[in-house]
């Protein structure tokens, strides 16, 4: 759907040249939700603007739906842009128009006759649940409603690709979830491919199947969201995941656990296929250990279970070691030792 090959973008600011995107190559597959995560200034917003040709690459090629758009003249780029939906962090609704007028704008640009425009606007407002707000002004809407209008507007011309640039970053948690659910419907019910720009890993884990982690203009890690969460390679990726998952005990939590529990404390990463809770229970039982869950949690990433559990294991020391060796062969284990013999598990 989207293919970037060796894409670099420099901004010249007086005598200074800033490289916003640095040699990025990636492919977004038709029908998927592709996340791009990074801190502010990592180049994500520039990257997504290269995809809909609001910016032109300094070098490299951008291909959208089989058309290489880098190098096309402005007139052709307009057609390309009209065929790609764009959702903004700050909504960017036209305050001089009503809700219906905003949604109708891209249709007017595309030259739709007024009657068809009206019918299509009705459909879209129904889809985003704002049919009763058609005649209101953007200024009268809440943030979540504004973004729904933004999404309806982005979908007006039935694009196959939707770019969402921090679409939920200006919203509160509940509204964020509503808007993400709406985007999920856009993906599953309408089959629209979505590129999701965000600095929040929770947004990626909620919606995306694959994700690229960006840092200083480069893609430092790219893969299935689930695999990335289960086994991150880069420290930056680990940091982003840490902000989305709170299942691993911090050092001060471990200290408190040791005061409450005398047995061996271990934190085990739980992931589909590799280490399920059933697998863990079986291992403890096989070695005659008594196991108690003292910390942790499980969640869903890309609709698959993931998390980490901290156990207190009580039993003979060599039995514990034997059980841990078997578990360690399948998943990540952090051994905190016992209260009497603490170990510095490196998390």
């Amino acid at each position, binding site marked *: 759907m989207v293919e970037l090959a060796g894409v670099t973008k420099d901004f010249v600011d007086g005598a200074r040249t800033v490289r916003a995107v640095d040699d990025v190559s990636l492919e977004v597959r038709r029908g998927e939700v592709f996340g791009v995560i990074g801190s502010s200034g990592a180049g994500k917003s520039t990257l997504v603007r290269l995809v*809909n040709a609001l910016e032109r690459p300094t070098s490299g090629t951008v291909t959208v739906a089989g058309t290489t758009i880098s190098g096309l003249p402005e007139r052709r780029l307009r*057609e390309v842009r009209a065929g790609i939906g764009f959702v903004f962090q*700050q909504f*960017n609704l*036209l305050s001089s128009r009503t809700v219906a007028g905003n949604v109708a*704008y891209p249709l007017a*640009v*595309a030259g739709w006759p007024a009657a068809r425009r009206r019918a299509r606007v009705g459909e879209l407002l129904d889809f985003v649940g704002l049919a009763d707000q058609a005649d209101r002004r953007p200024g009268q809407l809440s943030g979540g409603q504004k973004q729904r209008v933004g999404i309806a507007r982005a979908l007006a011309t039935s694009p196959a690709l939707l770019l969402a640039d921090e679409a939920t970053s200006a919203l509160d948690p509940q509204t964020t979830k509503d808007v993400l659910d709406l985007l999920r419907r856009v993906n599953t019910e309408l089959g629209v491919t979505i590129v999701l720009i965000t600095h929040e890993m929770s947004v990626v884990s909620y919606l995306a199947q694959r994700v690229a982690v960006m840092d200083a203009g480069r893609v430092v890690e790219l893969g299935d969201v689930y695999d990335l969460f289960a086994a991150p390679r880069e420290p930056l990726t680990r940091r982003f995941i840490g902000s989305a998952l709170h299942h691993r005990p911090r050092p001060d939590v471990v200290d408190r656990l040791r005061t409450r529990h005398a047995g061996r404390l271990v934190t085990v990463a739980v992931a589909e296929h590799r280490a399920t809770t059933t697998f863990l229970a079986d291992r403890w039982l096989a070695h005659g250990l008594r196991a108690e869950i003292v910390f942790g949690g499980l969640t869903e990433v890309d609709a698959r279970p993931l998390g980490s559990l901290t156990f207190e294991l009580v039993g003979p020391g060599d039995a514990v070691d034997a059980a841990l060796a078997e578990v360690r062969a399948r998943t990540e284990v952090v051994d905190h030792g016992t209260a009497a013999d603490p170990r510095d598990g490196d998390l």
Partner: protein
Amino acid sequence: MDWNELGPSFTLAVGQTLYMTSISLVVGGVLGLALGVALVVTKPRGLWPHRGVAVVLNILVNAVRPIPFLIFVTAIQPVAIALAGTSFGPNYAVVAMSLMATFGTSRIVEQTLVALDPGVVEAARAMGAGRLRTIVTVVIPEALGPLILGYTFLFVAIVDMSAVVGAVAGGGLGQFALTYGYQRYDYAVTWIAVAAIVLIVQLAQLLGNTLARRVLRR
């Protein structure tokens, strides 16, 4: 003061002032809007970034605007005569007024448009709108409220100009006040002219404020 003598002159003068100010507002407003938009879009991050054009336009506007209007009227007299076909009266005066109004408007338009949220422009472009369409259907409508207030401000400046042209036989309330008030030492006549101008300005300001409020409330 003999109102039977001055009445017809006063009515004529009010008519001439309204005529000159409205023509100047329309001509200067439209040309100034175009020039102001040109000043904005040619900026480095504008819709049509062009360093050369931007520099030339800025020098032009900066050169004309500080010229005292009384001197400007006399300086462009050949142009005014060529365009109006006469060297006195409202049609002659309106040339200089429209020109000066154009340059004044351009800066007001520029100031208003640079304050516009660049996000809406980007949104329009992302939806495939061309640059001209973006200016006409997004940039100007989104800035309409402040633009109306800017034009109201401009109207007051034009009324001021309409009085100045009275000194060079341009007609209007300025000339009325100078001829029948100042030169005859008849303050009452001058004050009547002042009252008429104040009334025109007040009405214009009221209209501008009302329109702007209606646009901004949404």
